[in-house]
């Protein structure tokens, strides 16, 4: 079977994997504002800052509810692509906020439970927010390719509603799978709907 896709609003990431939120106010220029998202240097927030915001569900297909973000640093390693809705994970268990979509240069199984999702294309080594919990923040992310109908790569097996989801390497980048790479790895999301046929 070949890989399939699952829509952004059909994935619900588990809350609290990076700690409780200390930021509860939306940045003035939005969560993907250029003053703090995809920026060089030390970033506007301390690495590991967790932000929780209400996604009103105003946009087409958007679901109302809470969304959670973690502030991290993008590390493209050997990957050529960077885009919204790419699944990514820590590069090492000693650096949980250094985020990559390179399956060959990540912390592998140890970090699979800490998978996050990119909000936009990111420049190598730049700092910014990653979707880390709750529903897809459709109304909060300005990137045109982060819409309710935009998709992430999903399993070669079928995802059905209500199942826990695991992040696995899929050659280039990661995908959502219904089975972990190792039997005891922790899930990091719930499927709100089946993936696309």
């Amino acid at each position, binding site marked *: 079977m070949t890989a399939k896709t699952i829509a952004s*609003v*059909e994935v619900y990431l588990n*809350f*609290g994997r990076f700690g*409780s*939120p200390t930021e*509860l106010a939306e940045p003035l220029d939005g969560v993907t504002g250029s003053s703090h998202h995809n920026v060089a240097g030390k970033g506007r927030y301390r690495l590991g800052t967790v932000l*929780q915001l*209400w996604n009103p*569900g105003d946009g087409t*297909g958007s*679901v*109302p*509810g*809470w969304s*959670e973000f973690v502030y991290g640093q993008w590390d493209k390693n050997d990957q050529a692509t960077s885009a919204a809705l790419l699944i990514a994970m820590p590069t090492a268990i000693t650096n949980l906020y250094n985020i990559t979509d390179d399956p060959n240069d990540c912390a592998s199984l140890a970090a699979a439970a800490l998978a996050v999702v990119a909000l936009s294309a990111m420049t190598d080594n730049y700092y910014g927010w990653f979707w880390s*919990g*709750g*529903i897809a923040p459709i109304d909060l992310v300005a990137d045109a390719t982060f819409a309710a109908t935009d998709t992430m790569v999903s399993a070669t097996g079928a995802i*059905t*509603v*209500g*199942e*826990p989801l695991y992040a696995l390497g899929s050659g280039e980048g990661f995908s959502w799978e*219904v089975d972990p790479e190792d039997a005891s790895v922790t*899930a990091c999301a*719930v*499927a*709100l*709907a089946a993936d696309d046929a």
Partner: protein
Amino acid sequence: MTASTIAGVEIVLKRNRFGHPGLETYPADGILGASHHNVDGSTPTKRKYRVGTVLKAWHPGNTASSVAGYTEFVYGIFDQNNGTKLDPDPNVIVIPTAIDDLFTFTDDVNDCASLAAAAFAVVMLGAIATNGTPIATGLMTDTYYGWFWSGGVYPTDFVTYSVSGSESGFTGTSTFITAVDTIVAGSSVYVVGQAASAEGFALSLNPQDASVVSVGMALAADD
């Protein structure tokens, strides 16, 4: 085996399923206060809290068999749909009506988001009238707004009222119906449709589908 029961105090629900609590101030008139629980929230001015608000409160464990620990509530809407409560006990398990509306809860197994929403099951607290007396069977008014137990320990200290005769609110002996399998201490518990009825939900050792996410943990075996 037939369906059995498990005491509410023997269940701990997973916290943070709806988000981190943004509210840690317990309402002055209690979680069932008539100013905010079981209220007509059809217009913004009538709503005391935003739908989706998560409240965390310390539960002292003062009443009989009560468990000390943090408990969590989520503010939502009750949608009766075509469901009717089978038991006068207010501990009715409800789940979202749809995956695009995670805060409208129903006890109607035929009009819910089914397995997709089983991971977001919560428990209805029941309802009391503005004068403090229980409303009939304790069922919330259809389409009204209020709090639902969503995480942590069973809030017996906070939901104490007699519903009808021998039935009561959340007490140390109040129970949930369990499915035909046997729940053991320490196991994950799942929400499923009741085996013996088309109405309502039950707790189970196993999910209705092989890999649906659990809602909490059992602290003891079922009866």
